[in-house]
């Protein structure tokens, strides 16, 4: 059975069983070429996909999915989803009505280059890194590409599909100078193979990691912090987004609950999500429920304007659906951003403080419910407006909302990162934060 046949089979059976159903089918193709020691050491080629359903019966919602597309497996999925739905005691569940959303191609022919060129890209990236005498080991170098086709359909008339994908260069290397060792990584993500440049990715890694060699301990204290875009994007993508999700607001997990229309951040701070961004890596024509994509300003000059909603949270809170429904075929209905970014500002003038170049261990050291974070960081000590020396073995700690309210300047240039979803940020200056070290 093809994915579309599986979708139609499920919708037809669901109607016969008296269930409202929404079917999401995803099919993806992946190619990964890994280089090591001047040779291609591993190639992975894959096709994979699955079908997930959300059913609603008597106002109760249940889920199930399968990667096996036989009638037996699909029947099992509907039975399990039905049983799962009946466990709910709440009865507010519904599927949004919708219509024909069309078929969209957000990828085009960007990945169609000969295999040989893709191999060469991985080999070139590794060779460019090895050419630097400070590089002791190149642990991993990869070219990777992925193409995904998603199909959505429901018994309430929603029908649509889109194709998307990306090409990626990724490397991780250990650099050393004297006794100092630093492991760094770098990646570049694009919609087209030809937009990647191994030499540029290598230079970025060498620059970002090389400048940390010879790091000294940092004295415990309070310092002004200059977050580089990558580090700030990590905080926004992980903690900021958590607070904005209406699902977390409804579940009593968001510190921003009850603060719509209030000042929650510095007036320089504006946070936007734009799924319609042309060429945006996380752009989408519609969300996982078929709600058409549009730009949303969450925080405008420090004022909280809206939370991120899907149809369910919007109805529960009596507010407008922002079209942020997210679901993978394996997952349950959630809320996710597309291209989320911090609006750039007038520029940062450094004087004294710490440039935070990267944060580590966010999955454990950042608690989005309490808003508190204490994170291992990499960075540079700045004195009199100049980078004095790199620092290491320290943490930076604070509360995310306090941090947002203490923003004192924003850089002019937006830089995108895909570590925590697609998040864009300029350099961000924060008045004072607590650093722990020696």
């Amino acid at each position, binding site marked *: 059975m093809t994915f579309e046949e599986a979708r139609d089979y499920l919708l037809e059976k669901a109607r016969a069983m008296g269930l409202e159903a929404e079917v999401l089918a995803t099919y993806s193709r992946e190619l990964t070429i890994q280089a090591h020691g001047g040779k291609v050491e591993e*190639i992975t080629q894959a096709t994979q996909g699955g079908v997930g359903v959300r059913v609603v019966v008597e106002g109760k919602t249940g889920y199930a999915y399968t990667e*096996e597309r036989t009638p037996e497996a699909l029947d099992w999925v509907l039975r399990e989803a039905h049983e799962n739905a009946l466990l709910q005691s709440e009865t507010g569940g519904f599927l949004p009505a919708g219509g024909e959303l069309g078929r969209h191609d957000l990828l085009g022919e960007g990945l169609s280059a000969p295999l040989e060129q893709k191999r060469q890209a991985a080999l070139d990236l590794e060779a460019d890194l090895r050419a630097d005498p400070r590089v002791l080991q190149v642990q991993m170098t990869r070219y990777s590409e992925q193409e995904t086709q998603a199909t959505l359909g429901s018994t309430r008339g929603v029908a649509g599909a889109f194709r998307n994908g990306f090409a990626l260069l990724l490397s991780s290397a*250990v650099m050393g100078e004297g006794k100092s*060792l630093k492991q760094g990584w770098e990646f570049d993500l694009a919609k087209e193979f030809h937009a990647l440049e191994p030499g540029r990715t290598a230079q970025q890694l060498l620059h970002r990691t090389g400048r940390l060699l010879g790091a000294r301990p940092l004295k415990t204290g309070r310092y002004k912090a200059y977050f580089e875009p990558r580090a700030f994007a990590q905080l926004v993508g992980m903690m900021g987004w958590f607070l904005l999700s209406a699902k977390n607001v409804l579940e009593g997990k968001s510190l921003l609950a009850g603060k719509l229309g209030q000042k929650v951040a510095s007036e320089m701070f504006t946070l936007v999500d734009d799924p319609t961004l042309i060429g945006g890596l996380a752009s989408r024509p519609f969300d996982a429920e078929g709600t058409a994509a549009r730009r949303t300003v969450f925080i405008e000059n420090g004022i909280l304007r809206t939370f991120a909603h899907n149809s369910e949270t919007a109805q529960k809170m009596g507010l407008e659906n922002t079209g942020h429904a997210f679901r993978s075929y394996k997952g349950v209905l959630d809320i996710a951003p597309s291209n989320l970014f911090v609006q750039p500002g007038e520029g940062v003038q450094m004087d004294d403080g710490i440039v935070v170049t990267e944060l580590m261990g966010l999955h*454990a050291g950042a608690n989005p419910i*309490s808003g508190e974070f204490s994170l291992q960081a990499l960075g540079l000590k700045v004195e009199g407006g100049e980078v004095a020396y790199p620092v290491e073995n*320290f943490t930076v*700690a604070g509360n995310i909302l306090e941090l947002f309210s203490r923003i004192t300047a924003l850089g002019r240039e937006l830089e995108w990162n895909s570590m925590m979803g697609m998040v864009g940020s300029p350099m961000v200056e924060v008045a004072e934060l*607590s650093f722990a070290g020696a």
Partner: protein
Amino acid sequence: MLDQALVGDVLRRARQGGADFAELYVERWRRRAMRVLSGEVKEATSGLEYGAGLRLFYGTEVVYAYTNDLSPASLLEVADTLVRLKGSAGQVDAQGIGGLDFRKTVAQGLHAPQIPFTAKDKRYRLERILEAEAGARVGPQIKQVQTNLLEWEQEVLVATSEGAWAEDRRVRTRLVVTAIAQDETGMQTGSAGPGLSVGLELFERYPPAEVGRRAGLQALTNLRAKPAPAGTMPVVIGNGFGGVIFHEALGHLLETTSVAKKASVLSDKLGEKVASDCVTYIDDGTTPHGWGSQEFDDEGRPTERTVLIENGVLKSYMVDRLGSLLTGYRPTGSGRRQDYTFAPTSRMRNTFIAPGNTPKEKLFEGIEFGLYAADMGGGQVRPGSGEYNFAVKEGYVIRHGRIEEPVRGAMLVGRGPESIQKIVAVSDDLETGPGMCGSLSGSLPVEVGQPHLLISEIVVGGQA
């Protein structure tokens, strides 16, 4: 799960294309997950995952493909695609002589569940979850309780062109309770999440109300906790999940995935003293019903108990097939992968610091000012530099040898090889706890463990 003749054909096709080793991995998962928030089932889901991965070796070069179309035509096409990808480099063996006289080994059921996936209905599960929630409501400050129940059943077949044929069935169950406490000072969390290679008898081993209670008490402790101090100080790390620090600081540095590339600071150090005398570190894939236990690894090799460090001396690495080819070290049954979408690499199973002989109370004696990290969250390491970090979930200040007020938000950071030299005393109360470990071959269930132990100094990230 797959016809033997078809498996033989796929492996033969790969060998004919010039691969000197071929391995087919086939699996089927059934999963259930339920999330209950303050009495309401928020989401219940069930899943069927199904796929195969084919890995070919050309010397130490690897090509890997996976698909979830397991029809004969598709699997043979996958083999052909891989051979094409590799190009004509390999030596063609037209006869395809490989040891396709499979030696079948089937799991003995060492970790088999008593109450399997198909037993009991969903209401039964929901009732146990509600018991956990009730247990977590230890005070009026507990505003929200979230409980997740995860059940996995995995059937695996690994067959290789050398004639290995291993079938394993793995069942894992985990209950995770998160309690949120709130008062005028803010919101804090506590959690507890036991998991084992068992079925629903998990509820007998860990009564849900008790699990909930632990989460609730921890949330209350964090609510009255002050921000953690900042600076370098002695730290006593609690037993059980406290072992995550050595999982990060030491375990990852001993996987051939990084050792073979000399990308670990502990490469080429077998027989050398790498830790203080009181440290013995073991990775055991055979612990009965351990969260990280399995009878075979994901390369079809029986798992084993591997002593990594004995009294401070490095004895073994964790070695998978590729790691063994690259380094010459004996494979240790450590080849693991999240599922068919990943090629296996060397990974930890149940890894712990062996008990020492210092009574727990003695560890605190003589500490003027320090931190007691009673329970831990997760962490992270960069094997190339050894830099690690991990979060303290429940912590207390140690003053004049006594455990005093609770503190929250502490993060421990350092370099693994330095920190293991600074373990000065190990107690005798070994416990283990389950976690999910993310690395090159995906996210895997592992146990971490240790007795209480004392590290003479470590950087504590808190409020300055």
